Each structure stands twice: as C-alpha cells, then as structure tokens.
C-alpha cells in the first residue's frame, strides 16, 4: 500500500554518505508492484545511486507517466516532489519543470508502453531538445497493469503468456535515442545491479539528455519460455560491451577488478567515468558505430548492454535558449515586468 510509510528506525551502524544520510533517507513508500518485479530492482538502483552521489533527496524532481513503471517514483526518494502525470506525457511535463527551475535534478521514469507507444513522440522530442534529465525506461515488453498485452518493444516472434506470437517489429528505444541525438545512451538489465547503479549515477551527473533503457522482466506476464524479456532470456543473451566505474572529485565510488582496457571519460561537472571495455571493438564515443553495433547484435538476438554512447561536452535546452542562470521560478515582478515607462514607448509606437 503506497500510503503505508516504511518504519523509519534503522540499525545505528548503517553506513552514511557525505551528507550524513543513510540509504533509508533515499527510500520511499512500500512498493505495490508484484513480488520479484524487475522495476523494484531499478528502484533499489536509483536509491543506491543517489546515496552514493550524496544527492540531497529534496533537490530531485521525480516525474513519470502512467503504468507500473510510472508508479515507482512513489517508492524512492520520499522527500522529493514527485509527479505521476499523464500516460505518455512525462517528457513534456519534465521539460516544463526543467525550464521553470534549472537547479533541480530531473529524473524521468517511464515504461515501454508509456514511451514507445502513446508517448513515442514526446520521448523523441524531449531527447532531441537536449533536456537535462535522466530518462529511464523500465522496459518489460508488456502492459502489466492491464494484464499482459504486448508493448511496442516486444520482439517480433516472442510469445505472450497466453501463447500469442507477436508479429510486429520491435522498437529499440536505445537505438532511437542514439538517432535522436541523446548525449548519453545506456542499456542495462534490472537483474544486474553492479552494471546498472554506476550507469544511473553517470546519467545523473551528465549534463544533457541521458537515456537509459533498462530491461526489466515482468514476473506476472512476461517471464515465461518464449519471452525475450524474461530473466533467463536476458541473462543468456546479454552482451555487455563495457563496465562503468564512476569517479567524482573524491574517492572512486565503484572500482571492480575485471579484465579489459580502461578508458577515462571526463564529464562537464568533473565526474570521471572509467569505462572498462569488455568488447575491444566497442567505442562509446562513436554514435554512428554504436548504432551499427546495436543493429548487428540485435540481428543475432543479442541484447547489448552497457554505456553505449556519451558526449561529455554536451549542452542542454537551457544553453540553447540562453536562459538566465537564476531559476525562472525565482524571478519576481521587478525581473519580469517592464513597467509603465516601457509601456509608454510601446503605446507611442502604436499611434
């Protein structure tokens, strides 16, 4: 029940971050999703990422559309303002909120029904405008809340729980985001926390439109044999191109020892991304190559995960619009209203 708050007491020895907050300070209400839902793992990853980055929870605005995934902002960052808006319209609401106050962190949470069908247009246009946000799609290939209809990301030939075979082509949102000019594109898997958490952190620190497609199996309607979004299928077909470590000004947050060469990427805000290449052929700075790589592996039935593309020098919609540094919602009459003297001149010119 979403109105039931989790008990606040916790073990005194819980680790604290730089702000003195524990994990518990980043939690929200109790999830109402099915036990074992991939979305709850993504919620946990967002909580972990915000904790690790020592973000003040109230400086995040969580915005979502409608659907199972869009319910999740109630389950993390309980001290943040959240907005469960209209089906498929999270991107426009987030864009407006971002224009009003450039100083907050914007977390857009959506699903495959929300972003690949009804909201496909808004997904595309918020990305191409370069809104400074982290846009997460919790992608399970089905409409969960309405009991298991195929969504537009369901692979052609995959089978529904009732045995129906999907005959429509699938939309690959990560490939779309690359084509639309997103300056940060990643794909991950809700069952792979070590890969997902640093990706979320890097996306939050990225200035510009950061898009993450997270395959998140639906335990109720899309976790059976014949599904291409099940835990088993994704584990078997996951082709991770890299592993990410994120290094802020302070100590490294995650460093895991694993084979592969390391590529350092410095983002606008000084964050360094240590990209451990698992696939020697993969270059996360080459948009065109990334697009080709995705298509090639999709044709082989592989799900490519990792940080697919990043432009560390990206800018955002506010830079394009050349808006003032102050948040627009803090401007007052003296900033906004030119007064009677300007009106006198306007009147004179209209005679």
């Amino acid at each position, binding site marked *: 029940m*979403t*109105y039931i708050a989790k008990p606040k007491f916790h073990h005194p020895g819980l680790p604290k971050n730089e702000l003195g907050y524990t994990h518990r300070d980043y939690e929200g209400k109790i999830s109402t999703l099915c036990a074992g839902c991939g979305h709850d793992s993504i919620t946990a990853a967002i909580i972990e990422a915000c904790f690790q980055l020592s973000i*003040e*929870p*109230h*400086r995040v*605005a969580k*915005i979502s559309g409608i659907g199972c995934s869009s319910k999740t*902002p*109630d389950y993390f960052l309980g*001290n*943040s*303002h*959240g*907005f*469960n*808006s*209209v089906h498929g*319209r999270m*991107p*426009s*609401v*987030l*864009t*407006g*909120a*971002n*224009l*009003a*106050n450039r*100083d*907050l962190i914007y977390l857009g949470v959506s699903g495959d029904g929300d972003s690949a069908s009804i909201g496909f*247009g*808004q997904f595309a*246009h918020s990305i191409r*405008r370069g809104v400074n946000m982290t846009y997460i799609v919790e992608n399970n290939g089905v409409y969960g809340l309405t009991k298991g209809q195929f969504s537009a990301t369901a692979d052609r030939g995959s089978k529904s729980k009732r045995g129906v075979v999907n005959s429509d082509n699938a939309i690959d949102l990560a490939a779309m985001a690359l084509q639309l000019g997103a300056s940060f594109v990643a794909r991950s898997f809700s069952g792979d926390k070590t890969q997902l958490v640093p990706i979320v952190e890097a996306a939050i620190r990225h200035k510009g439109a950061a898009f993450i497609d997270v395959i998140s199996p639906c335990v109720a309607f899309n976790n059976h044999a014949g599904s291409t979004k099940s835990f088993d299928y994704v584990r078997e077909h996951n082709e991770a191109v890299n592993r990410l470590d994120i290094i802020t000004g302070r100590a490294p947050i995650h460093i895991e020892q694993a084979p592969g060469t390391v590529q350092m990427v410095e983002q606008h805000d000084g964050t360094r991304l240590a990209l451990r290449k698992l696939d020697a052929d993969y270059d996360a700075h080459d948009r065109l190559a990334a697009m080709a790589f995705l298509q090639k592996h999709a044709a082989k039935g592989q799900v490519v995960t990792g940080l697919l593309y990043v432009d560390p020098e990206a800018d955002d*919609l*506010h830079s394009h*619009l*050349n*808006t*003032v*540094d102050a948040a*627009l*919602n803090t*401007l*007052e*009459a003296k*900033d*906004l*209203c*030119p*007064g*009677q003297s*300007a*009106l006198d001149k*306007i*009147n004179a010119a*209209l*005679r």
Partner: protein
Amino acid sequence: MPAASPISSVNDFVVRFANVNGSGSASANELFARSILRHGVPVSPRNIFPSNIQGLPTWYEVRVTEDGHLGARGGVDMMVAMNPQTWDKDVASIEPGGYLFYDSTKPMPSSKFRDDISVIGVPLTAITNSTYTDPRQRQLFKNIIYLGALSALFEMDAKLIEQLIGEQYKGKEKLLSSNVHALHLGRDWALQNLKCPIGLRVRKADKVGDRIFVEGNSAAALGAVYGGASVCAWYPITPSSSLADAFTSHCKRLRHDPATGKAKYAIVQGEDELASIGIVIGAGWNGARAFTATSGPGISLMQEFIGLSYFAEIPAVIMNVQRAGPSTGMPTRTQQCDVISCAYASHGDTKHPLLFPEDPAEAFDMAAQCFDLAERLQTTIFLMLDLDIGMNHRLSRPFKWDDSKQLDRGKVMTAAMLDDGRDFGRYLDVDGDGIPYRTYPGTHPTKGSFFTRGTSRDRYARYTEEGPAYQDNMQRLLRKFETAKDLVPRPLQANAGKPTKYGVIYYGSTTPAMDEAIGMLEARGHQLDRLRVRAFPFHSSVPNFIADHDFVYVVEQNRDAQLRSLIVNECGIDPVRLVPILHYDGTPITARFIAKAIGDHLDQLKVTPLRKVGA
C-alpha cells in the same frame, strides 16, 4: 437599372480591398487605414483571408467611422477590385450608389459593371509598367499607386501619408523615397484625370485621441510579459500563432538581462498541442508562470491535461484564439464557439474559469490577470480571444500598468513556514475558501514534499479510492470555484435611458457591434439594459440581472447558444427567459444584424393597432 444617386458621406463609409493573397497588398492597405487615423478619424479594419499563403482571394475592409463604431458594419461603399477571380461577387456586393475602383489598363466589357454605381478606372498596370521594370517592384508599388489615387479621391492629406511612410522606412532612405514617389504617381494621375473628390471623403477630425492601434494577439502577448509569464510552449495554429510570435518579439525587446544578454524567459515550440500544455503544466507545477496559445482543435487535444490541472490543482494559462469549428471548420473565420468546450474541458466533473476580453486593451489587462488567477486558484485559466479581436488591428485605449503591482503567487508554503511547524496537507482547506497550500519542488529537505497525481487522494496527498475522501475533495474543488466568482472580472452593466423590461447579455468581440446596435434599437423605439459578461464562473450579478428583466437576449457568435447554455446550467435559469441571438457564418457580428434580430423580435411583441384599409 436606374442610376442610384452616388453615396455621399464624410468620415462614415466602408472601403473593401479585394486582393490576391501574397501580393503584398496587406501593408499598403494597412497604411491606408493608419493614414485615416492620422486625420483624427477612427477606423476599424478587418482582414478577411483564406487558409492559404499565396494565390487565393483575400479582402481587407476598412470601416471609416468618425462616430467610433468599431464593430463590422456590413455592406461596402467602395470596392477596390484588384482580384479578377472574385470580380463578379465583389462588384455585386457594392451598395447601390457606391463606387467601384479598378485597374482600367485592359478594357472590360460593359456587362462586367453595374449602372447603379460609380465606376472609377485607373490604369494601374500601365502606370506601374511604364515606371518600373523589376517584377517584384511592379507588384509592390502598384499597391502604393492605388493608395495614392484613393487619397486624391477621398481628399486625404498626402502629407500625413508621407509622414507615416517616413516613420515606417526610417533609416531606409531609398525605400522611403521610392514609396513616396509611387504614392504621388497614383495621386497625380487621379488629380489630373478624375473628378476629385468623390462623394466619400475623409475630413480631419479629433476623434482618435490617445488611443492605440493594435492587434489583440499582440496585446495579449504583451499582457503575458507584464503578467510575469516566463515559460511559453505552443504549437502553430491559426489564428493563435501570431500571439506566440508576438510574445517572442516582446520578450526579445523587454526580457533580456542587460548585463549578460541572457533570457528571462523560455519559449518552446512543442511537437504538438499535447506537449505544449504538458510543458505548461510541468512549469506551473514547478512554480513558473506558464502559458500556451492555441485555438479550438488544440483545446480538443489538450483535454486530458486540462483535467489533470483541475484535479491535481496546477496553475496553467491557455489563450484560446477561437475560430469557426467544428473539426477544422473555417480556420480563418471568427466565432465564439469554444465556450462550452473550455468551460467543461476534460472527462469527469470539471469546470474552468474563462475570461472574455472585448478588445486589445482588455486582452492586455486580462492576459496579465490570468497568471495571478491561475496561481491564486491553482487551476487552468482560459483567456477567450477570437480571430476578430486577435488578428485585426483595433483602435483601443492605451495600455496601462500600475508599477506598484506585485505578482500574486497564491498560497505557497515556504521552507520557513514549514520550519515554523505549519501543518502541510497539499489538499487541506485551511482557510475555508477551497484553496489549499502548495509547495514548490525542492523547498525543504524533510518537510512539504508530496506526490502529485491525477488519481484520487486524501487531504495529505495520499492515494485513496475511499468514497468519502474522494467526495470531500470534489466538494472542496466546488468551494474553490465558488471563491473564483469573486476573483474573476465582474460583468459590466449599462442601463437604458428609460426603465425597460428587457435586457441583453453579450461578451467578447460582440461588444462594439452591440454598443452600436443599442443606438439603432433606440432609434426604433426599443430600450434595452445591457450586461457584458467578462468571465466564467458567473458573478451573482448575472442571475440578478436576468431576474430584474422579463426576458434577456443573449447575443453570441456560435450556433448553439453556448454562453446561454452555460448561464442556464450554472445559474439555474428557466431557458425561456433567455432569447438567443446567434451569428455564426464566420464573419464578425454586425450592429445591423443585432439590431434587426432584436428589433424584429421586439416588434412582434408590440400590440399594433389595426389600420384601416387605404389609410
């Protein structure tokens, strides 16, 4: 046909220019209208244009009216027939005794004319071609040449026109002198070859005063600047696009930080109307003043978000420049046909405040006021413009602003208030006016956050589907709407000179025609009290006005008597007491139409004594 005697009238006539869209006639025609204003004589111009960029017929009508009647009059005293496509219809539309001005370069068969009008031929093409070689120049200057000829026919002061051209092309000497030259080419030809002046004349007067000449869309956009709008999201649609364009140009001039050059506003052209209203609602939720400009089809698309704004209580402003519907309807024709669709926009039980400006000056005032109302009432406010006000230049009182005015940000709980221990429930009615407090995102580390949703919730914004909690919230929203009645602009009443049992209610762009019709009705012996409704929800003075009269006419520009329905529904009025007077052919309503419709109705009520045969 017997020759009617030529119409003779000083400072009171209608000239209509029939042109081809895209021929550059608009600026010459506007120059004509402005130059009459410079004679101190009010004018009321109207663009009649197709949904087209180049090639289709377009008309520009100038009503010259020393008495200051700014509504459309109906009828044409002089037709400047520059479009062969529409020649027959144009010639037929001239009042008996009127004038036809045409390009006489090529001879026309006499069957193409009428003998009850005065025909004035000027060889415009011949004059133009003998002077200019460049095709574009030929086209543009031809317009100025006919303006010159008309100035002679109407006995206008050429110096005043030259002055206007001078202001228009200030710093562009070459354009200035070539325009003045073209003006005199036409004027001199007319003076030498025609009998000048004709019966229609412009004589200097002093009836314009300090009034300004401006389009409603531009005025509303300026009102948005003064009202503190900092986010605008819009999608192009006739007839509202020029409002967003005007907001952009006003902001470029008035809203850049002089030190850094940076913008104190953000304008986004959305991918559609859904995105536009979504951006507005996101910005409003986050504490910025935001608006969109659209027209009927856009309102249809925005329905779902408008319901969210109502139920989740998020400030938003929609400027609806109405055009003739339904569906694509007549995109370049005027109507007041979105009253119901805006008042009750979206599914479920909803209602929204509407403001009805009468002219550009009021569009400016009300546009600014919309933003205070939206934040005070935490809901969507509609500014109900229409094509007639929005896209035509209208003589209007000058814009005025009170520099001591602050923005009314409504009930916003700050971090300090939260730290003081104030109880924060997003949907808690603490003051009994139905308006709860809100917090901006990012206000306080541990207090005042809440989850905004379109689903049902309790007073503390917690999700619930409990019937009593749902009803409690819906009743509070009604209380809030009750509060709105005293916040929105009040109706304005004007009583007849003598006591009367009859009244008339009207609103928006009908106003100048209604004001003029009152005089015409008085001349027919009919007295009417007037009430101009300026907003929905209706103030108590609306039902009171109806109660004070036997019956009341409701004059509006739509087929279904939408404002009348709204009054019947919201004020519990017996429908037979409200007589609809409806004009909805897409042209602006005229005083002649209103006076005839109401006058004929009132005449039928009169007991007429039987007359003797042959008396």
